[in-house]
């Protein structure tokens, strides 16, 4: 087991190198001048040929491909990803500033999706074809068939437009004022809900939560529905397996049969799907954040893409590629934890 994890960890840098290489290939399709634009914070520099040339030399933008790649990698390691015109700050800072908001949204979506999705999937399978199963399935099919952007707009329309309960954005103005300007509000985790609780500000916690509910529902409904369906069919299949009958023939009670013998096997395909799903959620983040003007990475990436802000787009692409690679690693490791047959010698 340990050797499996170590082996997977050793391959990791190689995969990441491959990722950077691909992104640099795309990057080098741009002319040196265009690439320079991703590094300068003052566009007027580009109008002065000598100053521009100096910067091109400084960033090695004119070098042959391999040399250029190595210099680019070096600057990546120094976290110098260029300048984001959209955010009006260096790309790395822009990412770090927006990451907590997105993480808060994604984590709050993923945890209930995995727990509730698997739980309902198992229940649905155990109560195969009952009313309960039918209800769960219909709800899941609706979620599965609604595109995120339509579902998001519907939620926004009903809960903000008509009812006015769940506003867009991340915080109300008064709360923003306290959170970002007040000296007394300490940022421990940069998750506003958690920080508000740690600061003992229930009113801010409630305000942040109200802003989070609609995006969480939008982001998670489709994944929840998908995970449920996979768990249900996998569970149904597992319950028909011979070893389930063996367990019953040993006198094991039904609860242990379902939640121990069957579920552990049924989860093997679910883990793969859940991993892919979480990675797919990153795409959903862009849409969801845009619909709800939620100031996270997705919202920023969407606006930079519209404004041809290459520096930001590349920064965003690199970040998501890294998250994806790490996500896959986690999936592989949990796969090996569940299924002993994967732990190859």
């Amino acid at each position, binding site marked *: 087991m340990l050797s499996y994890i170590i082996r997977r960890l050793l391959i990791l840098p190689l995969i990441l190198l491959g990722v950077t290489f691909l992104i640099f290939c795309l990057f080098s399709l741009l002319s040196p001048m265009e690439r320079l634009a991703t590094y300068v914070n003052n566009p007027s520099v580009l109008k002065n040929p000598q100053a521009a040339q100096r910067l091109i030399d400084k960033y090695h933008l004119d070098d042959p491909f391999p040399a250029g790649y190595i210099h680019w990698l070096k600057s990546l390691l120094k976290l110098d990803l260029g300048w984001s015109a959209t955010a009006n700050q260096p790309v790395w800072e822009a990412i770090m500033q927006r990451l907590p908001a997105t993480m808060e949204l994604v984590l709050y979506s993923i945890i209930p999706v995995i727990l509730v999705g698997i739980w309902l999937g198992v229940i649905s399978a155990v109560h195969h074809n009952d009313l309960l199963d039918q209800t769960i399935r219909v709800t899941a099919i609706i979620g599965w068939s609604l595109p995120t952007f339509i579902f998001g707009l519907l939620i926004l329309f009903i809960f903000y437009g008509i009812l006015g309960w769940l506003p867009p954005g991340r915080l109300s103005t008064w709360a923003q004022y306290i959170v970002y300007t007040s000296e007394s509000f300490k940022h421990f985790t940069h998750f506003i809900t958690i920080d508000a609780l740690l600061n003992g500000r229930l009113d801010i916690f409630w305000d942040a939560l109200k802003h989070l509910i609609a995006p969480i529902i939008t982001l998670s409904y489709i994944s929840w529905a998908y995970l449920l369906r996979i768990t249900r069919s996998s569970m149904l299949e597992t319950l028909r*397996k011979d070893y389930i009958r063996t367990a019953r023939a040993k006198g094991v009670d039904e609860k242990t049969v379902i939640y121990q013998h069957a579920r552990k096997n049924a989860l093997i395909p679910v883990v793969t799907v859940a991993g892919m799903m979480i990675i797919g959620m990153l795409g959903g983040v862009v849409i969801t954040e845009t619909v709800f003007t939620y100031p996270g990475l997705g919202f920023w990436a969407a606006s930079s893409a519209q404004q041809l802000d290459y520096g930001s787009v590349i920064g965003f692409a690199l970040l998501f590629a890294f998250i994806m690679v790490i996500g896959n690693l986690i999936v592989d490791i949990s796969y090996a934890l569940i299924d*002993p047959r994967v732990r190859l010698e």
Partner: protein
Amino acid sequence: MENKNRDKVLEVKNLKTYFFTEDGIVKAVDGVDFEVYQGETLGLVGESGCGKSVTAFSILKLLDYPGKTVEGQILFKEDDLLKKSEEQMRKIRGKEIAMIFQEPMTSLNPVFTIGFQIAESLKVHYKMSNLEARKKVIELLEKVGIPIPEQRVDEYPHQLSGGMRQRAMIAMALACDPVLLIADEPTTSLDVTIQAQILELMKTLLKQFNSSLIMITHDLGVIAEIADRIAVMYAGKIVEYTDTRSIFFSPLHPYTFGLLTSIPRLDMEMEKLESIPGVVPDPLHFPEGCKFHPRCGFATERCRKEEPSLLEIENGHIVRCWQVDRVREEAKKIAFTRRLAVVE
């Protein structure tokens, strides 16, 4: 018969298990009677689909939906299992009646160690601690002939060979010292050499544990090896029921006769391999009269119209056939050596 003096462990009376499918009622087991005595092995023989496995699952009440036992009695130590609640059945399964399944690869859970799976029934029925159970499991693995049991106990089913897996299955079934073992084609998926080893092992262990066994198989070679008495099943009913010797030396039912003549032999000159013509009838549309008549070389008008009932023809030899006398004559004509070699 000598059995009359021994304790009856199990008595199945007029067992009827039907499957209520959308296309109609499948009478998988339709009025089966047999008994198993202390320490004896009963062979349940028949083609696939004849209801022998369903009989086994009916005894343990482990039928899959939409199967249901609609009639009959299953007296285990004089208690009717069909009247027991699920809770009471659970205390019997694995402890009093244990089962060995056909395919050890799919019948063992791939994500748990074999040690865990064997220990489970010990923990369920005897409330053993992990440590006690582990000690007992290692002992059991040793008994079923698994080398280096201290190491094997922590291995997963995929790390064991087919024969080893079946040994682990047997250890699992014997863990709680069951009174009755039901083995559903335990050797079918194994190599012939391994088959012999497993049968030998089962014989030794049965003596050691003094358990009774119901051996379900379609393999007459296996049954000759291990069974004391044999019940031959066809289309959900018992067609012949007697001791092993009589089945092999003087079969009285045309189906048994056909099964025996279709065993290929290398030590005899045979012009062609005999077989029973036709296929097992569709359980939704059983033929009228005797269910075997469309495939039977002895069939007459009466067989087509009237279903025979089980009759004791000779002492302890029960047959369901109108043409017993003709079958007996025919069986005598066939060289004796032929069946003799199977038994010995």
